[in-house]
Structure formats: structure tokens, C-alpha cells
């Protein structure tokens, strides 16, 4: 079961502009709120701090600009091997 995804607008905006960002900000972290580009940063932590300063504690989108997006895998969860009792 996945959670509700509240950053769909920002994700779509990013995908729409991804090639432009790859040309300008490859490897950096871009900050997006709604359909507004709010800057590029060297680290994710810097982008989060800037987002908090600009937008407060509201949802905003931070994404590293890479050719291939990162994927997270959890073999233990995927295989369902975590339910353990003695």
C-alpha cells in the first residue's frame, strides 16, 4: 500500500522541465512549489532550508536533477520476511 502522493503537481512540473534542468542544473537539487521553480542548490539539506525559509512548513518539492531517477528497493519488505516471533 502506498501513501497518498501530495506533490503530484510539482512532479509533473519537474518532468515537463527536466531536459531544461539537465542542461542547467545537472547533479544539483531543484526546489519547486506548485508550478514555480524556486532555485537550485548543491545539497538536499540546503534546498530544504531554503524551502522552509521561503514557504514555511508546507509541502514543497526537492529533486536531484539526474538522467535516471533514483529507485529505492527493500528486499526484506518485498519478500515479506519481516514478521518474526520466537
Amino acid at each position, binding site marked *: 500500500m502506498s501513501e497518498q502522493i501530495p506533490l503530484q503537481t510539482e512532479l509533473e512540473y519537474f518532468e515537463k522541465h527536466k531536459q531544461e534542468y539537465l542542461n542547467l542544473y545537472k547533479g544539483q537539487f531543484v526546489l519547486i512549489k506548485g508550478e514555480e521553480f524556486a532555485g537550485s542548490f548543491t545539497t538536499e539539506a540546503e534546498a*530544504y532550508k531554503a524551502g522552509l525559509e521561503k514557504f514555511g512548513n508546507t509541502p514543497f518539492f526537492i529533486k536531484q536533477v539526474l538522467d535516471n531517477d533514483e529507485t529505492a528497493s527493500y*528486499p*526484506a519488505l518485498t519478500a515479506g520476511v519481516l514478521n518474526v*516471533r520466537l
Partner: protein
Amino acid sequence: MATYNGLFTETDPSGGQRLSPTVLAHFGPILQISVSIPQVLAALYTSLQIPLPSPVTGTALIDTGAMKSCVHGPIMSNLGVNPIGIITSLTAAGPALQNLYPAHFTFPATNIEIDFSSVVGSDLSGQIINGQQLIALIGRDVLSLGILIYNGSLGTFSFSI
């Protein structure tokens, strides 16, 4: 350098306790964890005189198969932390989009604290270890910061940062 030592024991025939490779093998390297809001958000709250939400404490599993650490998603929502990104996770139900949250981990048995720019908000409902709800998986992003020693034949593990 701070070190967490995990010792897994069982009752021996004389009624005493002895280290147990079997118990460690069953549970895996688990430890108590406290999940709280990221430090930069805590600083913002403090400057605005907003009370800090209480950390959530529970069981975490060190998972060398996990690239990024993850936290049970509702915990981050309940702490008032908003998502900052989306990642595709490979789950039992196939690929799924999951939120990324900044977070702060504390291991109460040590003075190890880690501030994350992002962890994955996963659904860990039903992930039970020894009757306790798992609230986090400690992934290789944390392991990259220190030294993990898993002594399976003795029934211990240690993690140092």
C-alpha cells in the same frame, strides 16, 4: 566515536541468560529508535515559539538491503513534517511512488543522532518483530557513516559512528 551494542540472549538450562545466535538470527539487528522532526524545522519552530512535537520511539531494523532508510509514513505526518519529494520504491505490490521526508533519528541507548535530508515514508503496517511494530528501517545511507559488526556466531552486533 559512539557505539551501540546489541546483545541477544536466551535462557539457559540453569535459568540464567546466555548470548544467543538463534535469537539474533530470528530478530535481526534491531534497536530502539526515536524519530523526530529535522533539526532545521525544530529551529524554525523554536524561533516561532511553536512547541516541538514529541519524538516517536519504537523498534528499528538495520537492513543492509535498503539503500535509503525509511520510516513508517504516518509517523512523519503525525509529527507535522511535510513531504519534500517522491521516490519509486520496489515493494511487495510492485513499484510504488512513496513520499520522502526530512527526519531526525536518535538512538536512545547511545548518543548517536542523525539528521536526514530525506528518508522514505513507507507503509510498515504489519511489519512485526517480536510483537513490536517496526517503525523504521536503517539503510545503507546510515551504514555509510559508520562501522557495523554482525557477530552471528556470538549473537551480538555493534554499530559505531
